[in-house]
């Protein structure tokens, strides 16, 4: 009925959606969409570094993302440029450096498209292990730091004054984001991971009125996007990553319609 590779793809996608659901909410709440995009772009540099130094790809992507995040903090203290300009600078220059290095790697065959858009149908057993192992780890950490992280997200001063140590939790959250990108780059690709982080959370915002509900709905939205995206990519023979994001966008549009109905009912 269903091939092994497809089952693995489904399992991988479900794993990704379970993590990006709640983390994506924090990305939106903290206005980090562009930051997530920057980390995702820098992942290409991470992959090329892995090829040059023969490192594990996920590990290398994680390390490069972390370096970029630290570099950003340094830049913020050294210039008066607005954040979005710094992020754009980092995103595109790290992407460019990655592509330049690829040019030197003439001996290695390298699937850039796969890296950009992901290849969920090529997921191996060990990828699955990484996604689910890493994913469960990320979710446990998120569960532990949820309260102080949420308080820091709402208001830095308040969290700090009442003993929540917001700096620590902001840093942990940045590390979690780097980790997600590291484990999901192979599945949805670096151009689409931002989409998986933001679109399900955005559609959840349209139909929720409290933070826990939003993170649950965001997870459900992500799961539906994965299922619809994967099955339609099988049926219409379209690229899997983009199909997933397109499905997510459709769900987002549907969530907008629902809002209109609700507000009409209220009238």
């Amino acid at each position: 009925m269903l091939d092994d590779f497809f089952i693995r793809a489904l399992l991988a996608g479900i794993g990704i959606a379970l993590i990006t659901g709640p983390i994506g909410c924090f990305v939106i709440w903290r206005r980090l969409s562009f930051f997530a995009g920057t980390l995702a772009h820098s992942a290409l540099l991470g992959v090329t570094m892995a090829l040059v130094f023969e490192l594990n790809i996920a590990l290398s992507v994680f390390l490069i993302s972390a370096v970029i995040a630290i570099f950003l903090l340094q830049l913020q203290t050294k210039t008066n440029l607005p954040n979005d300009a710094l992020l754009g600078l980092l995103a595109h220059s790290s992407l460019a450096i990655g592509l330049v290095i690829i040019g030197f790697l003439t001996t290695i065959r390298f699937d850039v498209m796969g890296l950009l858009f992901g290849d969920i149908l090529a997921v191996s057993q060990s990828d699955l292990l990484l996604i689910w192992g890493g994913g469960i780890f990320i979710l446990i950490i998120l569960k532990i730091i949820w309260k102080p992280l949420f308080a820091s997200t709402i208001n830095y001063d308040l969290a700090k004054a009442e003993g929540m140590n917001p700096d620590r939790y902001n840093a942990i959250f940045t590390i979690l984001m780097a980790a997600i990108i590291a484990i999901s780059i192979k599945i949805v690709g670096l151009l689409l991971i931002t989409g998986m982080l933001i679109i399900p959370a955005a559609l959840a915002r349209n139909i929720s009125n409290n933070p826990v509900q939003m993170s649950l709905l965001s997870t459900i939205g992500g799961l539906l996007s994965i299922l619809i995206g994967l099955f339609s990519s099988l049926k219409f023979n379209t690229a899997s990553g983009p199909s997933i994001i397109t499905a997510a966008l459709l769900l987002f549009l549907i969530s907008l319609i629902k809002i209109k109905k609700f507000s009409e009912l209220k009238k």
Partner: protein
Amino acid sequence: MENKKKVLLKVENVGVSMNDKSLVKGVSFEVKEGEIVTLIGPNGSGKSTTAKIALGIYKKIDGKVKTYTNKIGYVPQKISIDWTLPIRVSDFMTLTEELTQDQINIALNLTGVEHLKNKSLSNLSGGEFQRVLIARAISKQPELLVLDEPVQGVDFKGEIALYELIKKISDKMKCGILLISHDLHVVMSATDYVLCLNGHVCCSGTPHHVVQDSKYKELFGDRASNILSLYEHKHDHTHSQDGTIDQK
């Protein structure tokens, strides 16, 4: 007996600068349990800054801050919550502390906004939000409360009731309070110790002492000195109202 009170916050000669410009400097005071210490001063005199220093919000400060409790409630002067974040009053109440439904209800009831419990924070008016902020700060039964202009935007009647509530909390819960207020009437009637700031401490002491200080008169004008006589009249009135609230 006075000396037996536990010191909750001790600030010694603190100051903070931003871009080489001093915001406030040389401030020292103590907050003891059951005591209200009030910071007054014109706009930009460093009141909020001093409160933030005391709360450890700034990373680099001059001087020393010692806090002898970790049960702190804070009502900031300005709080810009991202209104795109879906959050109800009840979610906001438990922001930094786990509370039972009862505790939430009691705190909201004290500030008169129990009916807003399940409302979205973004739908509240300025005054309603201010009441929720106060409710949140007192709900965790803090030992130290830092209130930065806590009744801004609250209607006149509510303002008096909230100040009475603050006084009651300080008396009954033995809570130490650091208050920032523009309302000189209230300050002078309920405060144990006043610091008059203008980038540094202009004068400080009991309300009686401060209103007679020439620097206070310079800063607030002669009319402000008459506050105390007004207060002494008002004080009797406050007590009788206090009684009616107790009966509730």
